[in-house]
């Protein structure tokens, strides 16, 4: 399996804080790689650094073999990277339709793709002309993910999509991402919800204090309760 995304020795400073302290990771093509870790471990910073929203102070980031660590965010997005931030960041003053029109950068909205999205998130069809700011948290998250997949992307960077959502909506999101995965998408997914991580992940990376402290298969971590407790301070049973 070839690696679509590779980070080697990536350091990121935010102000005087040294957040990423030499990250080495690889995201294989066509697989879902989970990025786990405690709060403040550097997961969000890793996604933002890949996306160019924060500049890496040193190290290499390559996408399909092309170096991207010095490229601007729009150029990285144009290489086919979709980003779903933790804050959802829907444009609340714009309607659901307008949010998706903006996300479909290369042309008009594709009806087939829209129907596929509406299959998972029927609320988006119902509130097509409503302002995104008036949607519930779950609906905003659906819109945020829909925005990232409205056009085919090489790589999806998704930051804690299930955070603070009701269980029914979490299940809908998991089903959607499973379908995206079936279509062959490559995903780097930050997640605190271990149930969702276990359901979706092929591989797992665990971060602590700005470094990767564990890498392996998700199934192996899910089966190893002592390892979960050591790495994440949790046991799978506690989350079932």
């Amino acid at each position, binding site marked *: 399996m070839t690696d679509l995304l590779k980070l080697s020795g990536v350091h990121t400073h935010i102000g005087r804080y040294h957040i990423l302290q030499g990250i080495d990771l690889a995201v294989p093509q066509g697989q879902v790689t989970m990025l786990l870790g405690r709060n403040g471990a550097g997961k969000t910073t890793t996604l933002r650094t890949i996306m160019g929203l924060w500049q890496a102070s040193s190290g290499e980031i390559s996408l399909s073999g092309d170096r991207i660590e010095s490229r601007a*965010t729009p150029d990285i997005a144009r290489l086919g990277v979709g980003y779903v931030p933790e804050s959802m960041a829907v444009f609340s003053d714009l309607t659901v339709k307008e949010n998706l029109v903006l996300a479909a950068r290369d042309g008009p909205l594709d009806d087939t793709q829209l129907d596929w999205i509406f299959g998972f998130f029927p609320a988006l069809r119902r509130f097509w002309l409503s302002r995104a700011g008036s949607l519930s948290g779950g609906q905003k998250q659906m819109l945020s993910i829909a925005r990232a997949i409205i056009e085919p992307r090489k790589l999806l960077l998704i930051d804690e999509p299930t955070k603070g959502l009701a269980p029914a909506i979490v299940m809908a999101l998991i089903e959607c991402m499973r379908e995206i995965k079936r279509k062959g998408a490559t995903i780097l997914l930050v997640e605190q919800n271990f149930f969702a991580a276990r359901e979706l992940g092929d591989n797992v990376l665990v971060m602590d204090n700005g470094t990767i402290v564990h890498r392996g298969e998700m199934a192996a971590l899910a089966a190893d309760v002592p390892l979960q407790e050591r790495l994440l301070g949790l046991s799978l049973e506690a989350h079932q």
Partner: protein
Amino acid sequence: MTELAANDPLPKPKRDIAPILLPVALALLMIPLIGSTSSWLTLTAASLAMGMMIFIMASGLTLVFGLMDVLNFGHGAFIAVGAYVATLVLAPFAASIQADSLWINLAVLAPAALLSMAVSGALGLVVERVLILPVYGQHLKQILMTTGGLIVAEQTLYALWGPQIIPMPLPTSLRGSFIFGDVAIAKYRVLATLIGLAIFIAIQLVLNRSKLGLLIRAGVENREMVEALGYRIRRLFLGVFMTGSALAGLGGVMWALYREQVHASMSDDLTVLIFIVVIIGGLGSIGGCFIGAILVAMVANYGGFLVPKLALVSNILLMVAILMWRPRGLYAVTSR
């Protein structure tokens, strides 16, 4: 956490009309205080005209604030430069300005206004590239750089045109008033109101009916996410900055004609008004800027008529009152 399920009906979004009603309520409230209907109508027409001119000058600044998070204290330079550039066209054609024909007047005025917009817009390009680009995200440096830029611009105008006030007479056909019974409404004020309304409608159409407008509105709210969708927002910033500068130049021409004079520091007082308008309207909100400009002009005109001594502080009081009611302005667009 209370959570709506995906299929739950949404509460209907409320249309926020309170700010729109504010100038209407203020105008109606003034009728008994002013006493004379004709004086009230004259003052209201004057407020609308003045408000439209301030709106034209402030609209670019509010978008620059909202979209680019740039504190441009040098915005007034575009106003003064616009007015001075117009004199370059109007002075050699003084005879055409004094002609009785509206069309001959406009044949000189329109190119003067367009040239002013072009020069102010081009100056905007230079200012954005030279002064603002190096200090994006650094508010204190932006204030220092743009204030310095304003001083340099003013002194350059002094050096080129001298310290004297340059007269800029109104074209003959725009002098005088339309008389309705005992109400007189100055012709130029009607024209200024119409131009302001046309610009407001044009901006609204661009913002609400085009992808460019979508990008601007989205960028005002969350620049970072617009970039993450693959749009090079810096180019959009530059376009908005130049358009805002060009509109300030047009506003400068209109204000100079209103006052019938041009001088290098003409924008000093206006800048204060413009900042008040941008703040009370809500940073980045064109609708808020429009209403804010009318409110500021109404308070200046009604206040000046009723309590002249209050005129100096009336707009500050207005700003305090609005911000106590809505701390992020009439229409909060950004989270700043």
